[in-house]
């Protein structure tokens, strides 16, 4: 029997796709993320405070969990057995540029903590952990480019933590406010046991990042 592929969401500034189904939309760039939020999420106002990188990761994770019917953990219920492991090549460059503008000119100097906090790329992992009540591992790795084999290796390593039995894994990049790429998938421990298969699955998602 052929093994079922991983569920996945792929987003970029002009494209949104859930398990191969393209979502209809009107907006592009940052406005696309807001449109997806309004149409498919709508109950997490913290979204509007996020930078583009966090929005791109957050929306992709929400669409993924909705697709697979993953239960939301709320109230006093926290989970420790799910990690969030994300990769990117430009890290927080978009937020870095936005923050740099606020300190570049002596006569127009207004450093903002709300912008500065997003100059750390792992903030997106924290945003998703807060939303879903995940107290497991959260990690962000920077690679030169989306490399399926390299990502599959580090994801399989993450399962060495005895508490981790599934990983929300993905790729997030943003260099300008209206420019982003992300994919998100959910990996079970047995998926990572076959690194070649996992790399193949990730490669399919990588191939769609520039659609």
């Amino acid at each position, binding site marked *: 029997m052929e093994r079922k592929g991983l569920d996945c969401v792929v987003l970029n500034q002009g494209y949104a796709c859930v398990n191969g189904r393209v979502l209809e939309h009107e907006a592009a760039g940052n406005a696309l993320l807001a449109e997806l939020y309004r149409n498919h999420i709508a109950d997490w106002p913290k979204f509007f405070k996020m930078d583009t990188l966090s929005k791109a990761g957050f929306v992709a994770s929400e669409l993924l969990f909705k697709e697979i019917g993953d239960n939301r953990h709320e109230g006093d219920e*926290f989970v420790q057995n799910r990690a969030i492991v994300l990769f990117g090549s430009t890290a927080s460059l978009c937020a*870095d540029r936005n923050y740099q503008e606020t300190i570049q000119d002596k006569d127009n100097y207004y450093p903002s*903590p709300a912008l500065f906090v997003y100059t750390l790329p792992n903030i997106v992992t924290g945003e998703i952990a807060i939303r879903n009540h995940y107290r497991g591992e959260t990690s962000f790795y920077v690679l030169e480019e989306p490399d399926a084999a390299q990502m599959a290796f580090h994801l399989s390593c993450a399962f060495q933590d005895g508490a981790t039995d599934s990983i929300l894994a993905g790729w997030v990049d943003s260099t300008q406010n209206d420019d982003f790429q992300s994919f998100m998938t959910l990996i079970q421990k047995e998926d990572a046991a076959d690194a070649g298969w996992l790399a193949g699955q990730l490669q399919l998602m990588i191939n769609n990042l520039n659609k």
Partner: protein
Amino acid sequence: MARVIRCIADNVVSPLGTDSRSNYDSVKAGRSGLARYESMGNITTPFVLSRVDRKVIDGLCGKLGIEGNYTFFEKFLLCSSVQAVRDSGIDASSDRVIFIVSTTKGNVSLLGAPQEGMEQERVLLAKAAREVTEYFGNPNNPIVVCNACISGVCAQIEAMRALRSGRYDYAVVIGADEQSPFIISGFLSFKAISDEPCRPFDKDRKGLNLGECAATVVLEASDVKKNGWELVCGAIRNDANHISGPSRTGEGSYLALMEVLKECRRDELAFVNVHGTATAYNDEMESIALYRAGLIEVPVTGLKGYYGHTMGAAGIMESILSMYAVRDNTVLATRGYNEQGTTWPVNVKSELRECKGSEFIKLLSGFGGSNAALLYRYVE
């Protein structure tokens, strides 16, 4: 049996010295790299910082034969890693060696101050890391751990896992950050920086100081027990509470501690080297996590009074100094501490203490709700 992960070489480059031994001796003697600055670039608010003299780094690079078109950050990574790799005796050009870089902001200063003849793409962290792997002729693609202030512990955990997987035999783990107006203005905007030398866990603590350091550990995987420093285990846990403030119950820190305590022999635990940034929230949170984990009586020590918060280097440098301290049967003094200032009275002192035991825990917390802990053990 899982492969044993050992630390076979280490280096620290900071204002207090250019190797681990001189750094340890300086800290033991009570010296600090912290100094007050009245301004920097467009920043006009005074702050205290531990800054490396650029001439010292250039001189060190000259002595080590590091030549090329490198930024300060890249020179910083290289002058620490070249010394550690040389001391380890490994062939860093082998594909059985993985390089892992720990940094929060890398070459971000290029955004505000582009350098002639330096490609702007070096602001990309993996491009800067590529400069290091290319210097050593290492064929593997670089990987950068970018988990805010806990990166240095995370990078060692990632190295441990990569080695245990069997894919690699050695890991060169390098942490560094350059303190530029970018980072300093950001922490000032958070009102997190003190204009005095920081006072970890003290009742009058006013905030953190930033600092510069580059630190390297070379880890080896082997199938047999040998004497030396063994990286036993580590864990990363999230508070799931707030992106820029720690959990009031120390949730992630507590969970990370509980995970490493599974492997810890409590009568061998010499001390916990904490994050101890001297912000009101961090130190309070750590005291709660230590209490909840049953560690309130274990000696606790923090190094920010000597180095400031060295960000990407912190987890690595503070692990290395802890190794030297355990071998010296010493709990290093927590410089700046005077009077208990946390809800739970952690066992912290402003003077040197003797200790017994062969293990220590390194603890860190950071933005994004992230927390991490490591357990090292010296095997005779």
